[in-house]
């Protein structure tokens, strides 16, 4: 019986090749997207499977009850906790704390911003990150590098024993290099430091302070054979003892929870300060994009199968008369869709191989996922399920044919079924495609806008050169000599990025009006160089005159209008001469107020800004070059750079280019474009098939009308009228939805484009053109046919 089902399934697919191709392509496209999402999900379950002790490792979470923010679960915990657990509880074999920091490391004349974890020695006994060479960083002042970091700093040279500088932490000796992990981990880092190393001064108090629970993570390794809840059971007592008598600012208190390493990924609950485990919500979002694409393809299958129902109806009648139960007929149709779906899986795999190298796919979706048998099993099960589901609707409709109706020798009776269903599916398909297209175009335009917009500072003709923390005065002096260089200034971080140094600023040392503000370090040349406008007061003074006390540069600050508003100064003029307290400790005086300009991502409205002259924080030189002399000036600047930094490549970049590259994401756009392209092809092919089969059933009518004198134009009109109506309807439905979807995305940006007629009409226009072409070609061919051929056949 099954053999018979499959034999006829194969023959049917072969006989109706157009049908099969359209559906295999469509289902494969949808499946490819789903497979990416499934692989990602599967990968999420495989996180951290390489630690030998993973069943015994737990992370301690802190559930904080806060008067302002309510109850929140933090992935972090107070730093003294690890010591307490290890000392007081025998079932704890090992604990490890880690503190995550992001900052600039330098070695071998190179400098990189690296993600670092400062870890206890226990880290290396607890986790199974494989070492490629050397030994773990257990003593203060040592570090272990990942393979990638080691190569970035030292190339092929042996990094062991080399020294790396990290801010105030001082020199770190490299003791080892990690091998690449076999699978991904929720812990992502470029470098591991021994925690004993004094990092930033602010951390020192933290290690003994039970009030601070956001600075680091605590992991616990239980002894073998200890039940999982042993730790969970003692934690209330630990929290009780720890918090007794503590004075919090806004918190009512906290308690501890455990989280098994094996349950960490994917994360079902969002944690504050979480590490890098994939979130279920994100995975589901990806899967639903895949499922929608697959749904579009499923619609095609349903549509085209029903469009061929005339041919299939007779077969259903015969089988029933020969003794088939309805369920057996259903099984037959399901077998067919399953075979089709397995073919689609094959093609989907090929497509997957094609998109695998795409940067977006590697970075966000499937990098590091193990392609094992389990995954293949899931893929096959998924495609069979897809086949069964896609086959279910047409199987239901077609198996309902009564033999008495379909087997009468004159087939005058209406046997077309599900016509309104088919029409709605076409409309939905095209509507979804249009909505997706309008959304993508909105995103694209927003990115272009952010990439090219007027930020309120001059962005043209400025070359940014990244520099190290060393004094740059001699380099600056040399640059100023270059012909074509108008001005050179310095700054700590580029504008147009996410901001840097966001912190609390107060009017008085204790209390008073306070606000969060961004602070950047710039030199006095900066303001004229970027054509910033001062509304009141003066520019920053040069560093020398600024140093009232040794090392106290940055006594004066410039603020923007928004800062003046945030600190409740009546106007810009009133702010000048007033003082502000930065981080509760530094008192600075406002020397001038600048007109507002955009200095962070467009996602945020303009925020309070403080500019200080702090030469040790400068990381970029901004060289303004006279228009027309870019070429020669750039060559001279390179030469000067080489002279000052013989070991470091020149990394200057035009500000214009930086803003453009930073805001356009060609990789992401390419991938989304691919998705839309697939959706469009699915809808287009579906329409093509629909028109083909529907026109086929009307071929006799066309013949008769032509004999009676209808011309080709009239026939094309006749055949295409219904489809054009469907397309128009989907346009009408999709326009408002697309407008809403696009705005939903744009809503995330404080400064955004507005979706105009241009985007809307081109979205609909592309679809209508595609649809009209499809319909036109197909119906024109039918109208051209010689009526003698169609009428001769009985």
């Amino acid at each position, binding site marked *: 019986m099954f053999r018979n089902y499959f*034999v006829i399934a194969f023959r049917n697919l072969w006989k109706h090749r157009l049908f099969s191709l359209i559906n295999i392509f469509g289902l494969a496209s949808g499946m490819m997207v789903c497979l990416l999402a499934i692989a990602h999900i599967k990968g999420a379950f495989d996180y951290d499977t390489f630690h030998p002790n993973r069943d015994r490792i737990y992370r301690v979470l802190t559930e904080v009850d806060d008067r302002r923010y309510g109850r929140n679960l933090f992935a972090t915990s107070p730093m003294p906790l690890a010591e307490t657990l290890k000392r007081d509880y025998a079932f704890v074999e090992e604990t490890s704390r880690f503190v995550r920091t992001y900052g600039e490391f330098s070695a071998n004349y190179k400098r990189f911003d690296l993600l670092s974890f400062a870890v206890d020695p226990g880290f290396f006994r607890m986790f199974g990150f494989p070492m490629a060479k050397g030994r773990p960083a257990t003593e203060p002042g040592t570090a272990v590098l990942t393979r990638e970091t080691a190569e970035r700093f030292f190339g092929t040279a042996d990094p062991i024993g080399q020294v790396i500088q990290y801010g105030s932490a001082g020199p770190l000796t490299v003791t080892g290099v990690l091998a690449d992990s076999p699978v991904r981990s929720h812990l992502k880092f470029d470098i591991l430091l021994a925690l004993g190393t004094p990092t930033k001064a602010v951390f020192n108090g933290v290690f003994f302070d039970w009030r601070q629970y956001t600075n680091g993570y605590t992991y616990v390794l239980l002894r073998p054979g200890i039940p999982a809840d042993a730790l969970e059971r003692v934690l209330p007592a630990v929290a009780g003892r720890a918090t007794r008598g503590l004075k919090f600012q806004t918190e009512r208190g906290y308690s501890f929870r455990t989280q098994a390493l094996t349950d960490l990924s994917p994360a079902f609950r969002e944690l504050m300060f979480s590490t890098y485990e994939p979130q279920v919500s994100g995975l589901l979002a990806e899967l639903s994009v895949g499922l929608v694409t697959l749904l579009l393809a499923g619609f095609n299958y349903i549509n085209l199968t029903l469009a061929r129902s005339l041919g299939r109806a007779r077969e259903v*009648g*015969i*089988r029933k*008369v020969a*003794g*088939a139960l309805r369920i057996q007929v259903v099984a037959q149709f399901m077998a067919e869709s399953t075979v089709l779906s397995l073919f689609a899986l094959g093609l989907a795999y090929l497509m997957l191989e094609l998109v695998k190298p795409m940067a977006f796919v590697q970075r966000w979706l499937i990098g590091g996922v193990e392609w094992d048998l389990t995954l293949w099993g899931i893929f096959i099960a998924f495609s069979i399920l897809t086949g069964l589901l896609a086959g279910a609707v047409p199987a239901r409709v077609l198996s309902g044919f009564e033999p008495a109706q379909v087997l009468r020798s004159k087939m005058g009776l209406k046997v077309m079924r599900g016509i309104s269903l088919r029409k709605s599916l076409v409309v939905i398909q095209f509507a979804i495609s249009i909505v997706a297209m309008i959304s993508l175009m909105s995103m694209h335009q927003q990115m272009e806008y952010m990439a090219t917009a007027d930020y309120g500072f001059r962005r043209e003709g400025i070359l940014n050169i990244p520099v190290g923390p060393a004094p740059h005065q001699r380099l600056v002096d040399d640059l100023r000599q270059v012909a074509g260089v108008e001005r050179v200034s310095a700054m700590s971080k580029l504008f147009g990025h996410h901001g840097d140094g966001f912190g609390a600023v107060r009017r008085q040392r204790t209390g008073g009006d306070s606000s969060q503000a961004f602070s950047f370090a710039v030199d006095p040349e900066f303001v004229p160089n970027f054509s910033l406008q001062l509304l009141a007061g003066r520019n920053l003074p040069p560093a020398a005159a600024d140093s009232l006390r040794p090392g106290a540069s940055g006594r004066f600050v410039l603020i923007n209008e928004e800062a003046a508003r945030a600190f409740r100064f009546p106007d810009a003029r009133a702010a000048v001469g007033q003082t502000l307290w930065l981080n509760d400790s530094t008192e600075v005086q406002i020397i001038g107020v600048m007109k507002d300009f955009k200095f962070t991502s467009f996602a945020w409205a303009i925020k309070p800004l403080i500019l200080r002259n702090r030469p040790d924080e400068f990381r970029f030189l901004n060289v303004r070059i006279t228009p027309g002399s870019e070429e020669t000036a750039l060559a001279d600047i390179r030469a000067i750079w080489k002279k000052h930094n013989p070991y470091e490549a020149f990394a200057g970049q035009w500000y214009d280019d930086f803003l453009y590259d930073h805001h356009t994401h060609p990789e992401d756009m390419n991938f989304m474009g691919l998705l839309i392209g697939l959706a469009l092809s699915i809808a287009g092919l579906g329409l093509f098939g629909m028109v083909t089969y529907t026109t086929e059933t009307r071929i006799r009518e066309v013949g008769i009308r032509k004999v009676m004198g209808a011309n080709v134009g009239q026939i094309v009109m006749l055949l295409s009228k219904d489809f054009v109506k469907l397309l128009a309807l989907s346009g009408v439905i999709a326009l408002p939805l697309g407008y809403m979807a696009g705005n939903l995305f744009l809503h995330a940006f404080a400064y955004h484009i507005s979706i105009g007629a241009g985007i809307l009409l081109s979205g609909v226009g592309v679809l209508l053109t595609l649809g009209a072409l499809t319909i036109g070609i197909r119906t024109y061919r039918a109208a051209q046919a010689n009526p003698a051929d169609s009428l001769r056949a009985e």
Partner: protein
Amino acid sequence: MISLRNVSKYYPAGFGKIYVLRNITLDINEGEFISIMGPSGSGKSTLLHILGLLEEPSEGEYLFFDQPVQKLSEKRRTDLHRNHIGFVFQAYHLIDELTVYENIETPLLYKGLSSSERKSRVAELLDRFNMVAKKDLFPTQLSGGQQQLVGIARAVAAKPKVIFADEPTGNLHSDQSKEIMELFKRLNQEDGVTIVQVTHSETNAEYGNRILRLKDGWLEPSEVIGSQL
């Protein structure tokens, strides 16, 4: 074996209904060979479909082997189709995607015969209908007469008690018709299969033992063919 009591069939039309069959009372015994005749649209096919359990009568009672079958579950009806009833159609209605062999095998699959039983039964039929050489061809590669032979082979494959044939020779020329009629006659006489056929041809009708004439849905008194009286 078949007995209709006051059976009528109507279809709703507008506010009223259109009667296709009116008050038909009819008995068919096992082993009979019956021909149904009548003008186009007189309800012949409808009557055949009701007899073959493809349609339900609107009124009246139908006993098949003394069992009332007006309202049967799908399972029971399918059971009768599998084991007792075979159909032959004017348009042959073979499955184009299956070979001759597979077309004949189809009812045996649904009947649940084992693979070896199916093989021997199909081989026997191919042999009997002289189609062994054509067993791997597809229906479109056969002439009309050959297709109808396959259609009949398929109808008798499951060894039904009765075959309903709706204008089985309607699309064939006369020598082909004759061949088909001879075949029916042999099936009727040698295998004892009851045959009910619809035909427009008096010559073909003569092969049977009884002719039923339908007119506007009414059944005229049946006539029994000559010599047998």
